[in-house]
């Protein structure tokens, strides 16, 4: 069935380095993707989104890349900080209804000082 998943369950980086978190999706009809950050004990927090008519979108310290050919999505975090430590999820609005987000399992990012 449809799925949005992540390649790596955990990622450990040094403070100041760049982080790259990857995500694969299977539904070629998906047209909207979102990255969420979830800290322990909190709900997911929107980071950045991208529509399928784009291949790159930049925010503050974050960049999302979309490769529709291989159905791959990545989140790049520049100059990673300790406050970036969290679980990151990609989500897909390809679930057939407005608002039915399909989330992947998540990648836990740990930033070493």
């Amino acid at each position: 069935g449809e799925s949005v998943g992540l390649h790596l369950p955990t990622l450990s980086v040094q403070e100041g380095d760049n982080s790259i978190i990857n995500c694969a999706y299977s539904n070629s009809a998906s047209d909207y993707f979102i990255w969420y950050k979830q800290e322990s004990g909190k709900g997911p927090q929107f980071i950045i989104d991208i529509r399928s008519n784009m291949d790159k979108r930049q925010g503050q310290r974050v960049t999302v890349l979309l490769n529709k050919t291989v159905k791959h999505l990545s989140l790049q975090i520049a100059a990673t900080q300790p406050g970036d430590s969290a679980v990151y999820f990609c989500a897909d609005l390809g679930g057939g209804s407005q608002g039915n987000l399909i989330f992947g399992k998540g990648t836990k990012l740990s930033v070493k000082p």
Partner: protein
Amino acid sequence: GAGVSQTPSNKVTEKGKYVELRCDPISGHTALYWYRQSLGQGPEFLIYFQGTGAADDSGLPNDRFFAVRPEGSVSTLKIQRTERGDSAVYLCASSTTGTGLDEQFFGPGTRLTVL
């Protein structure tokens, strides 16, 4: 401003009991969503409201689960005859219009433990 709030933050119940989980969305948000998150997993969609009506309830796992939003604001997720497998964090989110492309703002969740 105030974000999405959920009560209680934690709920422990016994197998077979009935529970109600409450969500207060951001004021003025038309759309409200319920998700369930098991340990180590991403949130799973349960149900989505546009105003007072359930626009999509395809994620509700069975008829023990029911949700209402009678006045188009606060929503209650109701679980009858709870089972141990219902243990999870139940997340609520709201968005401005519910078109699908507007940001969903999540609450902190209610952690439900069924003993």
